[in-house]
């Protein structure tokens, strides 16, 4: 019987490959340079699938995979919120260890091994929202505000959050991000995690056997040292005498840089491929910060930023979830153009969404939809009356989900190359996404003149539509 193993893409790929080699397990196609998402090793009775690390505990808990290797923090993030999930960590594995740190900006006036005196309304950002919740609860912060993030947590303190809970190898690494590490709440080594039901009922020796001698003790859980001194802290309020602009990092950066350049706008520290968190603006009254585009709509809605360059896809996903949000698109920048629609297996017996509906309606079981846009996926399922649709929010490496782990992927594609390369096809796209400038209405800044001038300048650089 084949054992299904989930392995991480990203930073830990090389370390996990080394573990597999050490254990005598195959690593073909799992080199850091490989773009393969799955492999089948019949002689080892092993089927391997590559995921973003945070998706691994979810897939193992669902029973889609028997076992996985990932950082312990992602297992803790899942199990601390959903303690009944069928996850069992068998032990630590050799490799890099990161810490999860509670950190503040230097202006807060806190030091290593101190904690803030609890006061109402402390704001905490994190890629680990379940862990962050547990930390705030244990520290008894009254009326705290938790803002879940896709990433770039270090960008937010002090203006947009009082604290960040983030992963870093050491206190020095937190300092390198410009923050003050206060306390490490989790030590996170690589671990082997298995599905509890699979462990009880199936022969998992093809994976447990080779890894057994490398397994260490169980990793520590969430631990906040007792007795740390509580200090009053300095908190920042957002300034309303400036316009606060958010620009994207990651894939969207190049397109944004080009849009700004064509409008004659440059920011020192925001290039085509490189950036600093707070690029310098020569436009009086304009402050710039670089964050993840996925996180922008929510922070613009809250008024942390007055404007942001993000994708129509992230804006629509936000509005699908929060129709009353005060965010709107102020300007379509027309770049980074791609189509979003339902993606299915190449051999799926339908070429259009209308044809596919008859297949999905006849399934006799829930339709599984995986997407990085969970609200758009929900909306799709509602519009087409898909029976008992199960939405699986995912975090990347998405082409590998169909057909084994999902029936449909709601996904964006610029040219379709990656989709075709993974044996998939897109049915009818329902959204064309471009990059765009979003704003809050009403704006919170008192400098609406600055915002209006910036918008006008940006608009002047937008290329005319083809045929106009």
């Amino acid at each position, binding site marked *: 019987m*084949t054992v*299904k193993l989930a392995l991480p893409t990203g930073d830990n790929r090389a370390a996990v490959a080394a573990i597999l080699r050490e254990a005598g397990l195959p690593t073909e196609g799992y080199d850091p340079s490989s773009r393969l998402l*799955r492999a*089948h090793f019949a002689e080892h009775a092993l*089927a391997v699938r590559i995921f973003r690390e945070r998706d691994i505990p979810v897939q193992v808990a*669902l*029973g*889609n995979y028997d076992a996985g290797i990932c950082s312990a923090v992602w297992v803790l993030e899942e199990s601390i919120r959903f*303690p*009944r999930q069928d996850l069992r960590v068998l032990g630590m594995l050799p490799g890099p260890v990161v810490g999860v740190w509670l950190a503040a900006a230097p202006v807060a006036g806190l030091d290593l091994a101190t904690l803030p005196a609890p006061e*109402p309304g402390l*704001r905490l950002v994190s890629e680990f929202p379940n862990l962050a919740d*547990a930390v*705030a*609860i*244990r520290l*008894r912060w*009254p*009326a*705290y*505000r*938790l*803002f879940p993030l896709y990433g770039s947590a270090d960008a937010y303190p002090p203006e947009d959050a009082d604290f960040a809970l983030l992963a870093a190898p050491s206190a020095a690494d937190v300092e390198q991000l410009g923050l003050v590490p206060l306390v490490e709440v989790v030590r996170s080594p690589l671990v082997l995690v298995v599905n509890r039901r699979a462990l009880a009922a199936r022969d998992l020796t093809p994976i447990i056997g080779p890894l057994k001698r490398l397994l260490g003790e169980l990793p520590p859980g969430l631990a906040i040292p*007792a*007795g*740390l001194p*509580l200090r009053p802290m300095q908190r920042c309020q957002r300034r309303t005498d400036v316009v606060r602009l958010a620009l994207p990092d990651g894939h969207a950066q190049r397109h944004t840089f080009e849009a700004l350049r064509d409008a004659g706008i440059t920011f020192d520290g925001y290039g085509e491929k490189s950036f600093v968190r707070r690029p310098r603006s020569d436009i009086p009254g304009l402050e710039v910060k670089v964050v993840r585009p996925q996180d922008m*709509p*929510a922070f613009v*809605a*809250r008024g942390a930023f007055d404007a942001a360059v993000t994708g129509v896809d992230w804006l629509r996903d*936000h509005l699908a*979830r*929060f*129709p*009353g*949000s005060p*965010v709107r698109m102020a300007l379509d920048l027309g770049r980074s153009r791609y189509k979003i629609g339902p993606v299915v*297996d*190449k*051999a*799926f*017996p339908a070429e259009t969404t209308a044809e596919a509906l*008859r*297949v*999905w309606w*006849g*399934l*006799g*079981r*829930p339709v*599984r939809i995986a997407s990085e846009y969970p609200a758009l996926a929900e909306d799709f399922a509602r519009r087409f009356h898909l*029976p*008992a649709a*199960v939405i699986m929010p995912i975090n990347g490496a998405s082409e590998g989900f169909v*057909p*084994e782990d999902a*029936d449909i992927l709601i996904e964006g594609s610029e040219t379709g190359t990656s989709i075709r390369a*993974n*044996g998939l096809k897109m049915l009818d796209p329902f959204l064309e996404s471009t990059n765009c400038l979003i704003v809050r209405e009403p704006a919170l800044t008192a400098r609406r003149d600055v915002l209006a001038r910036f918008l006008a300048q940006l608009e002047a650089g937008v290329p005319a539509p083809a045929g106009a």
Partner: protein
Amino acid sequence: MSTTEYTGASTAASVYVRPTTAIPYHGSREMADTAPASALPTRSRGMRDLLPGEMAAFRRAEDAFRAAAARWGYEEVRTPTIERYSLFTLAGTLTPQMLSRVYTFLDWDGWSGERVVLRPDSTIPVVRAAEEAGLPLPARLSYVQPRYRYSHDGEEGELWQGGLEYLGAPPLLGEVEVLAVGCETLEALGFAPVVRLAHVGVARALLETVAAGDEAKRQELTDRLAEEGLAALLPQLSSQHASFAALALEEGDGPGFLANLRALAADGLAAAVPALEELESMVETLGASGRRSVIALGMPCDFEYYEGAVFEFSARDAVWGRGGRYRPPLGRCRTACGLGLELSALAAALATGRAAPPPAVVPETAADLPRALDVLRRIHRAGLSASLEASAAANVVAVHVGPHGLRLEADGATVPVSSLEELISVLAQQK
């Protein structure tokens, strides 16, 4: 019809069958955790259905509580099922363990970062509502509503409580009044309640001897006291206080037991003495009014929340409700007394199965339907129950309405009835 065999990139083979109408497609694997769409989804884990027998028992318990509360002058309120999460973190009265078991999620305006929660507790919302509405104090408020908390065994996700919040309750009078309402409710349901009494002042005095000046230790032990009771402190206590704690963990009744405790407390635990004296007054008052009580200082209690006497209602080897003196975490009110009776548990204990169906009124033909409806109206106006049926079922009293008048069918015999008045009289006797 054509059939397409598909193996694709999957390790498991999948078969697509393409008929002209319905297209069965099984995908590449069955889902591990999700029932087929064709199966009836079961109720959500931890939530409750109250079926007819249980619902009748629930109404009995609820009515008994409402009646007792109303007799003592309590006015009923109801608070929203969904509250702001920050209400509970701001109040600071739920322990981290409790807060980590709430049902919390983002509302439609969740972009603001404000989460909401299914009401995990009713006291804080009732205090909030009274404050928000500016109700004059003192205020006697009662409620019947569920609270929602995740539990690992799935048994207590949704628990209905009948509760009192006596905001601004005077010392002693508040406690004995709230206790009386609880006892009257249980007595009306056929229970013989015993009031188990404790006082957070005792636990607090002992805690000070082991955690004075150590906030972290105080916090840890406070949380453990809420879960484990006084026993959580035992390993920490000095020998000087261990004998007091050993006796305090026993249960006793009467002023003699309290006098023994007071004697031991006098030696280095003076802070516990006022609490013991307060309990003594309560025991004497309850005893003189015919109520049974025991001193049970070891009972778990959340004394971030409570500030004075706390109590449980015990009967038939189970606890049916709890309460005590607390300091409202928000607003103008400085002190209050409250209780919560576990109506879900009471209903389960009282459930006796479904009641017998009411008499059936059966029109013999379609033309007799208007007359049958008139008969039903007259029966209902008399305060009796009856249902409209197409035919008479076995073992059910039936009133046949036909062109030749009314006929009553009971115990296998059918007899004519001369008038509606006679019919109602017979049905009233059979009720």
